[in-house]
């Protein structure tokens, strides 16, 4: 195919009729609202993608058109109007005239509480950095260290061009384009995301986080992450930024695919704190995420997540335990306050023999929020001696919130051992009074109790992240007691 020029595109578009009056001005970096095949093509073109990638997106788009939004989750929200969204927007550029004085003071207050440096604050708000050189050099140092080990870590848009053989081999193998409504949408229109490949036998020498935080200014609306750990390799990947982001994007539909080949181990930690909406439940992000990992023989994948943000969360990081002796883990803390709704959990699909999975979920609900755990443990016929342990604890604050647990268990092999424990507790007045009596004010007391409740999961996070996550829990629950 000849290079599809902007003029061609414009020409072609003129000849068609679109419900929402499509026009494009490729010069500008935001596409008009609405979604159709042309937009998908235009995104691909804009990113200078190879043809196979364009086709791949179009296939996904075709599937998506036939699909309907899932309704089984325990969440209620006004369905997004998918034709009212702009599907491509280049990363916001730094505005040289903008200073921190132009940033929402509420947001700055939160940063202060989190102990975020001024430079990072600027970074997160697209304010020009004073010491750009510094961060660039830091990033370069990381790149060098990683490069020496043969580790590839780059935006997926670059990987598509630089390592097409890897991307093509694995993209969509764990989360197929047609997997679900949001995954299909993501596959069609994903803007960017990360790609990571750890070669055979390599232990990634650093948490892939610092790098990420420096380089990932704003996270896209439709992020796509692909992480491949080759045989006997190890990587710990941290996703998200612990600072609250007030993203104007209503809808976030990310896809993450992990591949752990024989003997590999992947630790994937997430802190999600998108804007949850205000105390009256207005605004906030819809976070519909598909995350799944595949374990080959003797491989291990651990998902750890701290979910405090978003108005609506729909997310089930899962493990397909295909190889014998593979291990899947899911550790989750989900906090909902005010009018937030979260329906989150995991799926552990045991296919191989002697596969093992552990699920620890801690749900904390306050205000008028609803917090659901939804988990599936599936033991297939061939999975001899599979084992699962699940523990789902809910902590309620006040009388207006809800905690729900939906565990699904499907067992097709008699040798399976499955244990499920669930508890629901309430922060009692007596606990608060006890803390008060020792000089600990109520808000701090709640933070202490919540941290205690979440400890098993917090402990799974890398140290530095855990401390930030703790602070985040505290902030998310501020004002949750009258």
């Amino acid at each position: 195919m000849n290079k599809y020029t902007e003029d061609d595109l414009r020409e072609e578009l003129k000849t068609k009729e679109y419900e929402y009056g499509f026009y494009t001005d490729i010069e500008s970096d935001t596409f008009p609202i609405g979604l159709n095949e042309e937009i998908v093509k235009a995104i691909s073109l804009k990113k200078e993608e190879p043809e196979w990638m364009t086709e791949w997106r179009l296939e996904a788009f075709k599937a998506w058109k036939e699909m309907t939004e899932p309704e089984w989750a325990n969440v209620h929200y006004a369905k997004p109007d998918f034709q009212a969204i702009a599907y491509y927007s280049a990363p916001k550029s730094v505005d040289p005239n903008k200073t921190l004085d132009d940033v929402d003071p509420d947001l700055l207050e939160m940063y202060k509480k989190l102990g975020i440096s001024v430079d990072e604050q600027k970074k997160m708000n697209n304010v020009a950095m004073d010491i750009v050189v510094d961060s660039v050099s830091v990033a370069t140092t990381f790149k060098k260290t990683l490069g020496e080990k043969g580790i590839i870590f780059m935006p997926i848009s670059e990987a598509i061009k630089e390592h097409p053989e890897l991307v093509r081999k694995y993209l969509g193998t764990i989360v197929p384009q047609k997997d679900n409504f949001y995954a299909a949408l993501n596959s069609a229109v994903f803007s960017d995301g990360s790609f990571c490949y750890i070669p055979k036998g390599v232990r990634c020498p650093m948490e892939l986080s610092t790098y990420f935080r420096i380089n990932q200014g704003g996270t896209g609306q439709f992020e796509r992450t692909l992480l491949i750990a080759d045989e006997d390799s190890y990587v710990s990947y941290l996703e998200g930024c612990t600072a609250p982001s007030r993203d104007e994007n209503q809808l976030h539909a990310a896809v993450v695919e992990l591949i752990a080949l024989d003997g590999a181990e992947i630790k994937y930690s997430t802190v999600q704190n998108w804007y949850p909406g205000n105390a009256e439940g207005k605004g906030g992000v819809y976070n519909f995420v598909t995350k799944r990992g595949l374990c080959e023989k003797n491989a291990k994948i651990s998902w750890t997540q701290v979910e405090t943000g978003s108005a609506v969360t729909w997310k089930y990081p899962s493990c397909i335990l295909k190889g014998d002796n593979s291990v899947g883990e899911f550790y989750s803390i989900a906090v909902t306050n005010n009018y937030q709704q979260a329906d989150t959990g995991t799926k552990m699909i045991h296919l191989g023999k002697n596969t093992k999975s552990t699920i620890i979920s801690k749900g904390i609900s306050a205000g008028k929020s609803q917090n659901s755990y939804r988990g599936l443990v599936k033991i297939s016929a061939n999975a001899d001696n599979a084992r699962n342990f699940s523990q789902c604890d809910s902590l309620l604050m006040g009388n207006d919130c809800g905690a729900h647990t939906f565990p699904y268990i499907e067992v097709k092999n008699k040798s399976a051992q499955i244990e499920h424990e669930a508890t629901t507790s309430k922060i009692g007045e007596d606990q608060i009074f006890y803390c008060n009596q020792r000089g600990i004010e109520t808000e701090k007391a709640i933070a202490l109790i919540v941290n205690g409740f979440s400890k098993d999961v917090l402990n799974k996070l890398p140290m530095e992240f855990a401390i930030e996550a703790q602070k985040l829990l505290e902030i998310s629950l501020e004002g949750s007691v009258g």
Partner: protein
Amino acid sequence: MLKINNLHASVDDKAILKGINLVVNPGEVHAIMGPNGSGKSTLASVIAGKEEYEVTEGEILLFDENIDELAAEERAHKGVFLSFQYPVEIPGVSVTNFIKTAINETRKAQGLEDMPAKDMLKLIREKSEMLEIDRKFLSRSLNEGFSGGEKKRNEIFQMAMLEPKLAILDETDSGLDIDALRIVANGVNKLKSKDNAVIIITHYQRLLDYIVPDFVHVLHDGKIVKSGGKELAHELEEKGYDWIKQEVVT
């Protein structure tokens, strides 16, 4: 230090304290005894500032200041400590972490910086040795799975760490074995000074053998119906409460 005038308190419109008068001076030890349900723990909670209880009449003065408006933590910052009859569990929060938070929150309220980790460690070592508490115990979740006696000893450990001005020990002796009782009592005695005061709520004489009270009060139906010296406790141990109830009626 503490002055209680004609204190009436109720919970859910049910009157429990019905006119308490009590004066506690620095350096004094007061024992409060009385039948089950007479209002001893309620009195302790009201002094400590539990919100459920409503003061309907009277006042509590702490260092000549009416503390009616003060929240429980503010009273704690002023040096009020309550050793609970039923200490609550806080899963996942270690004894060490809890007491560290308590101390630093109190310091913050007093305009002080956090206690340096080194000093904190030293203090913990010192006080846990005094109360013969195994260090491993301090890493366990607060009160979770503690035996009755362990809970009480842990309360006194916290008291030792916080060094309150006014300590109220609500049935700290119940649940303690004979050796533990001696250790805990000795601990309390070591913390005693001319500047602080202790109120001991108990049903039994034996604790008072170790911590000798200056005054003994009998609480009955929300009122202090009899006060006396340490011999009153012996008398109660011998005769029970009936004769006092008789006296009240007549």
